[in-house]
């Protein structure tokens, strides 16, 4: 039991080390030459109003540029609600043992 605990500790420390190395490699926050600021975000900022006619840029991305994503997001919501209803609803039936 004790050896197992030590092994778990070792694995956790190794994973923490790996994650910390990855975090140290991240570019500093908010710098203008970060790789996030590429032509995609530039196009959204410059052309979103003209291409969609919507003032709220988040809505223009969520419901126009990334409309497929949002559509399947709503389907995920639908599936989640369906699963909860099927699992938890008390289906009343005579002679059912539950």
């Amino acid at each position, binding site marked *: 039991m004790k050896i197992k605990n030590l092994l778990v500790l070792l694995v956790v420390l190794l994973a923490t080390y790996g994650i910390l190395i990855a975090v140290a490699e991240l570019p500093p926050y908010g710098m203008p030459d970060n790789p996030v600021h590429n032509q995609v975000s530039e196009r959204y900022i410059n052309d979103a109003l003209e291409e*969609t*006619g*919507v003032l709220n840029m988040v*809505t223009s991305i969520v419901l126009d540029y990334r409309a497929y994503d949002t559509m399947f997001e709503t389907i995920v919501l639908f599936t*989640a*609600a369906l699963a*909860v209803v099927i699992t938890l609803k*008390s289906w009343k039936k005579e002679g059912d043992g539950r």
Partner: protein
Amino acid sequence: MKDFILKRVVVIILPFLCVYGFYVILHGHVSPGGSFAGGIILGLSIIAYSTIFGIEKGKAKIPEKVLVWTESYGTLWYGLMGMVGIVKGFPFLANKLAGIDVGVPGALSSGGLISLIGIGVGIRVASTMVTLFFTMMEEEP
């Protein structure tokens, strides 16, 4: 719950909550917020009502049939709005590309399909919240 103050406060707040939820859904493309946030506010108003006054009264306000209907057809509405692009000979979910008038930026009628899709998504999210709440709070017979 039998607390008098709680009941009165909820009765006063409830209409404003509902109107605010609809406002956030309808103005999702002009002001901060959006259909998801507005739908959650709208669902929360019904959840607050049925928490204070009891599940039975809440179910009397929003029957299960309405919930099932809005939940299913909200998703279908999204797909239907996407079909507008295909009918006009453009890709699925095309908005300005399909020649739909996007209007003056800042007006409530701007955005073309975006505002229509937003209404559907908002009502869907609200009905999902209420369905989850009603199903989970149901007592064992």
